[in-house]
Structure formats: C-alpha cells, structure tokens
C-alpha cells in the first residue's frame, strides 16, 4: 500500500484524471495548492508597476494504491501531465501502513 502525491499544473488535471481512469485508478483526492520552485513566478501588473508573484497555482493529487501499481501510476501521470516545460511538477511516493473504508470498516487493499 502506497500513497502517491502528484503536484501538477492545474490545466492538466482533466488529462491526468482520464489517463488514470484508463488504467483503472478508481479514486483520488485533489487539493488546490500553491507551488514554489524553479519555475519563476509570473509577473503581475499593478497600477503601472510590474511585480513578480512567487507562488504559482498547482494541483495536488493524492492517490492510494497497492504497491505493485505504483510504477504504472507514476508513469501514467508523467505521460499525461508532461508539457516539457519547467514547473510540470513532482510525484512523491510514500509508505502507508493501513487504509480503512469508513462506510464498511474494510481495511487494506479492500478499502481502496
């Protein structure tokens, strides 16, 4: 059981979602976040001056998956979210000790 976190560009969400659906990923949890990295923030205008805004809007996707599916998922995300430009984001894979389904109390991979 792993948790995969993907931080992507917002307009790639639909493509990622669809690509994951195609390989049978049934669920995910999505958060709107702000990213800070190598990609330079965009400039904004404010009454005749330009300012650099550091933070960029990003989408954070959290996916629980059985360990053996992790690579396929990561690959799929990379394919769907990649634009080749700086700021495309990261995928993080983390260990999970257990998962429960609130509705049924099921545990482990049955809960996903």
């Amino acid at each position, binding site marked *: 059981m792993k948790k995969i976190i993907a931080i992507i560009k917002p307009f790639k969400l639909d493509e990622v979602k669809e690509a994951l659906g195609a390989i049978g990923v049934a669920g995910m949890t999505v958060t709107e976040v702000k990213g800070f990295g190598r990609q330079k923030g965009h400039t*904004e205008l404010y009454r005749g*001056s*330009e*300012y650099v805004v550091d933070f960029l809007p990003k989408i954070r996707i959290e996916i629980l998956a059985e360990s053996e599916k992790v690579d396929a998922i990561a690959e799929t995300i990379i394919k769907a979210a990649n634009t080749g430009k700086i700021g495309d984001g990261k995928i993080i894979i983390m260990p999970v000790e257990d998962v429960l389904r609130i509705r049924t109390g099921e545990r482990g991979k049955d809960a996903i």
Partner: protein
Amino acid sequence: MENKIRRVAWTTLILLTAFSFWPSLAAAAEAKLNAGNTAWILTSTALVLFMTIPGLALFYGGLVRSKNVLSVLMQCFSITCLVSILWLAYAYSLAFSSGNAFVGGLSKAFFNGVSFGSMTGDIPETVFAMFQLTFAIITPALIIGAFAERMKFSAMFLFTGIWLTVIYAPVAHWVWGGGWLGSMGALDFAGGTVVHINSGVSALVCAIVLGKRHGFPEQPPSPHNLTMTVTGASMLWVGWFGFNAGSALAADGAAGMAMLVTHMSSAAAALTWMFIEWSKFGKPSALGIVTGAVAGLVGITPASGFVGPIGGLVIGVVTGFVCFNAVGIIKRKFQIDDSLDVFPVHGVGGMVGALLTGVFVSSGLGGVGLAEGVSMGSQVGIQIVSIIATAVYAGAGSFIILKIVDAMVGLRASAEDEQVGLDPSQHNESGYEI
C-alpha cells in the same frame, strides 16, 4: 445661445451662493418648486450615496488583502453614518449657512428652520442638503485608501469626525457656501478642490504620518479580489453621473453637458492608462483601465458644468497620463505607502482638473465662457490659488488632527493586529468562509 447658457450657469452659481447666505430669505421667497429638477436631484443623491456604499467600499475593498476587506467596508459604512449625523447636527450649517468668508454659522444647526417647505432655488432645501451630504460622506471616505490595512478603527473614526468639522465644512463653505474662493471666482463645479484635492492631500499626509505597512515596498501588492474592484469602479462611474450632472441642481442642458463630458473624460483617461500599460508592459490590465477611468472622473469634476465635449476629452487624456505617472512617483520614487494611491489619483487628478477648468471654460474651446472681464490667464491664476489654498489647509490641518488623534487613542494598529489582519483584530469578524 451660448451666451444665454453662460449667463444661466453664472446666475445659478450666484443664486446658489446667495441662497446659502440668506437661507431664511430664500425660503421666504418661496420659489416655485420644479418637480423635474427635484426628481433629478433626488436621483442624484441616491447615485452619489451609491458611490460610497457600496461603490467606493468595493473599489477599495477588492484592493486589500482578504484579512482586511471588512475593515475597509466598515470604514466606508461608518463614515457614512458618522458624517450624516454631524451634518444634521452642525456641519451643514457650517458649510452652507450664512457666516463669514471662512466658515458658516450655526443658525441651521440640527436643521433648524429646514422644513417641508424650505427651498434652495427651485428644489426643496431638504433635497439640496441631502445632495450635499453625500459629497461630505464620500470625501473623508476617499481618504481611508491611504491608511488602509493598518489604522485603528477608533482612530479612523475620530479622525473623520474632526476632519469633517475643521477641514471639510470650511472648505465647502469657501467654494460653494458663499466663502472667499467662490467670491473670488474660483470655478469648481462638482468638487475638484472641495472633494478631490481636499481628500487627496489629506490622504498623502495620513500615509506619511502613519508610515508604511509591514512589507512595503518589498512585498508585491496583493489585491484579494479584482472583480470587486472592477465592480466598485463601475459603480463609481455610474454614480458620478449624479455627482457631476446633479451639481447643475437642475435637469437641463447644463446637466446634460456635465454628464456627457464626465463620461468622455472617464473613457479617455481609461484608454490613456490602458495604452500606456499596453505599450510599456505589453499587456493592458483590468486594474489599470479602471484606475484610469476613476482618474478621468476626478479630473473632469471641477470642470464638468463649464466645459464642452472637446474639453472633456482633453481633460481625460491629460489626467490619465499625469495620474499614471504620479502613482509611480509616489510609490517608487518617494516610497510613500499611500496604500490605494489616493493622492496620485484624487489629489493630483483634482489639481489637473482644477487647472484645466480655467482653460477649457473658454467659449473658444467649447466651454460656457469665462466670466465678463476675466481673461484665461487670470482665471487660471484664480484656479491655482484655490488649489494651493485647499492643499495647504487640508495638508496642515490633517497633520494636526492626526497628531491629536494619536495622542488620544494611537493611530496604528499593533504590529500583530496588522499581521493578523484588521478584520479579526478590529472587528472580530472575517470576510469569507467559503
């Protein structure tokens, strides 16, 4: 024809002055009520109140961070209430009752003698007093943009009360209430000096005395909701029709021309600002175009009843250009944290407008024409005197008031209150829970 109109404009001005001087007499004369004019001034009053709440409140509110948005709205709203009560109590009397060249008297305190039948010209005096009140409301409300995001509510409230009494009421009297500037022939149709220079210069002094916000100028400004700001600017534009065309105190050709030039100046200044940004940064911004529009509205205010379409156009372009540059100079060169740019837009815009009024009033340029025996040069001279007098009085007065208020309750919110935001720290509230 033009001649007749010019005469009407001057007569109106003189009558207005006269009525303010001898109001009981005016009432006694029982000029016949003109329902059409009254309808338009009733409407204009609604429009000008609409400019402050919600117009200005939204325009300013969108520009601050979300943790301060309610403080801005609350300041606009509470100023509306406070000024109204003071107006009733004594400020209308100080501004518009008979007195000396500097300030009116107290004969109309608590609207003494203002009854159902009192008249000012051919409209009820109640309507005139209400219309003027909406100007007295928006003027101090404009100032709050200078100290947004850091002033204590109590200090803001006290400052407004004193400022209205010792700055606004006298200056309104100088120009419109029979005081020395009006007598001298200064032209200010709808408040270039009384409203915009007055508030703009006071704002500058506030910004300097209060000092910079935490993070200025390193942190980029972060307007939390520009849709709110564009909405507010739109409301200001529409409401300004009441402000300027209502200042004709009639629904006539002067009002029509005032509305027309107001609109054209705003459009011209907005496009000017937009094209400067477009050429300078490659992109025009929504905040830019609306700021330009407001600048254009400010610029035309003193001129609105005196100039023709071309005057409106030129005043718009010039104001847009000058204010654009003024914002940069104040913020980047002098590093003064006039949070929402009140001085460069209202102060500077008002000065440009007041000056150009002296030029475009000329009938050769499409205006109503200079008064008999007055040359353009001497009219511009008078305009300069009125600008300087207002600026100096407002600036020095505001400085003293701020010092007094500081001694009484302290001006600035604590550093922590500022960081947490004025909404929770001053009002125990938060704007959004979405």
